């Protein structure tokens, strides 16, 4: 087979937006797929835990409208990876609702396939009992039954296999639940018989949109072409350009290793890749190696609610207080704990974030304090929202009026930018499942709707 396969990636994240002109420039090529990644764990566990999306519905619809209204009439398969941000059932349904609205508004018809990525607690418990679950890195605890039972939403990252199958079945739009980010892109190449190493490496680049170009951005389009022995990448915006260095460097992004990538059922070895520029702005890559794993592992992600939060933001300008701020905060914390000594310590915790001292780096901050003003954010996280808010109110009033040694500003210690000062945040989640599960290649269910 020597047909070149072309994939258009409109942007690095569905709903981030992209110049329509770049997209239309991509449409001038003979395309075999329009693929867009919609997911990420970057924004923390809240999206998966609470079942909400990262981008607004308005923004997702704006992007999808351009993709669908151009792709569907031309019969170009459209694939959405990790629909709705976290790729769980709620997120997929949110995406499907948007797609239906667009199809109806545009008077279009399309065969839609959904690939679900949800796993039940029972499935995960069974795998755990059979010893098929392993932590992803040494600082992740072993998965216990309690954690599984407390995790309401568990998804796994799919590989290319179910997506290739959906392409075989002639789908116009494939909505994937949680997917390994490069997989929906790799599926196009693999479906057309191309090398899986090249297909996945290209997928790894395309999933971020034009981030591999210079200047890089996730908010613009990029075109990938797979030949029989190489792949090519080029910007679709004349204001950006791909270079061998920019494309080589892109494999660094958000990965633990610069040239070894682990995906579902394989390792991708990019150590001996060659990056060339046969034509200005077109980067040609060879030597990406796909090494199938002995055992097929998929990555599970799950979030559980761990607490509720109430927080306060305030400014401090008094130099005497700034000089002894951490000492004063320790006293304020102790004062609040004393006041609520009837409540067990394990039911809540009080934290101070001193922006201007070490708000970002915490105890890792090597710099000494230099500023004249500190932004302080303090929070109480507790078993219930009511408890968090009650204790936070006490911390706030104690802090506001605390009479520290040497104090001259006896009217108040904090400048609140807002009234009311206390903000109820709602539930706080954590990634309670981030483990590999030994599975088989048919673990993901395809549904045609």
């Amino acid at each position, binding site marked *: 087979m020597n047909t070149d396969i072309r994939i258009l990636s409109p942007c690095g994240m569905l709903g981030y937006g992209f110049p329509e002109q770049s997209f239309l420039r991509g449409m001038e090529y003979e395309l075999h797929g329009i693929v867009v990644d919609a997911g990420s764990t*970057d924004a923390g566990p809240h999206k998966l835990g609470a079942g909400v999306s990262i981008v607004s519905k308005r923004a997702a619809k704006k992007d999808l409208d351009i993709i669908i209204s151009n792709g569907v009439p031309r019969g170009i398969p459209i694939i959405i990876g990790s629909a709705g941000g976290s790729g769980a059932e709620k997120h997929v349904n949110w995406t499907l609702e948007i797609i239906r609205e667009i199809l109806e508004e545009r008077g279009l018809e399309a065969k839609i396939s959904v690939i679900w990525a949800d796993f039940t607690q029972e499935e995960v418990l069974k795998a755990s009992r059979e010893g098929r679950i392993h932590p992803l890195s040494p*600082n992740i605890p072993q998965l216990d039954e309690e954690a599984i039972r407390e995790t309401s939403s568990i998804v796994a990252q799919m590989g290319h296999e179910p997506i290739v199958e959906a392409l075989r079945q002639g789908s116009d739009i494939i909505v994937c639940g949680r997917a390994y980010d490069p997989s929906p892109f790799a599926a196009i190449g693999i479906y057309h018989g191309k090398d899986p190493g090249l297909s996945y490496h290209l997928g790894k680049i395309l999933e971020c949109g034009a981030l591999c170009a210079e200047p890089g951005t996730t908010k613009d389009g990029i075109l990938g072409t797979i030949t029989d022995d190489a792949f090519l990448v080029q910007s679709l915006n004349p204001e950006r350009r791909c270079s061998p260095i920019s494309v080589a460097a892109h494999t660094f992004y*958000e990965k633990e290793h*610069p040239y070894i990538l682990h995906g579902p059922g394989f390792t991708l070895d990019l150590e001996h890749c060659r990056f060339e520029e046969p034509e200005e702005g077109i980067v040609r890559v060879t030597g990406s190696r796909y090494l199938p794993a002995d055992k097929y592992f998929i990555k599970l992600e799950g979030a559980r609610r761990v607490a509720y939060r109430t927080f306060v933001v305030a400014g401090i300008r008094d130099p005497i207080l700034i000089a002894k701020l951490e000492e004063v905060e320790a006293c304020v914390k102790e004062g609040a704990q004393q006041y609520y000594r009837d409540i067990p310590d394990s039911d809540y915790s009080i934290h101070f974030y001193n922006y201007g001292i070490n708000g970002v780096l*915490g105890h890792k901050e090597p710099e000494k304090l230099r500023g004249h003003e500190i932004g302080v954010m303090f929070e109480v996280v507790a078993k219930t929202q009511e408890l968090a808010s009650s204790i936070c109110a006490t911390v706030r009033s104690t802090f506001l009026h605390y009479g520290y040694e040497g104090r001259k500003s006896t009217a108040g210690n904090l400048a609140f930018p807002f009234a009311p000062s206390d903000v109820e945040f709602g539930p706080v989640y954590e990634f309670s499942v981030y483990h590999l599960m030994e599975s088989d290649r048919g673990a993901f269910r395809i549904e045609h709707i």
Partner: protein
Amino acid sequence: MTQLGQLAKVLRSKNSGPFELTLDVLFDSEDRYRMVKDSGLITKKTVSELYGITEEQIHHLVFFDQALGFKITFARDISSGTVGDRDVYGAQQHAPLMVLDVGPMKEE
């Protein structure tokens, strides 16, 4: 005295999954990349001192010549976005590496 941030074209931090942070340092000149790589300063020991972590917490420290860059990945104390985390995306953890003194360096 030259700081690493003065030589690098890109010096950034980001999550590599919710349980790890990764630091990327990329150069736009082979000479600068070589100078830093060959200085022998970029070690797990250096990074552990900069960030107050143990060498065991550093999962990877790898140079990639084709990309003129190196990557350091270490364990997060607290996973992304839960109680006690200070940087959900891990996007502002690079500053200590930026000011690393890579010694008197000749300009190419």
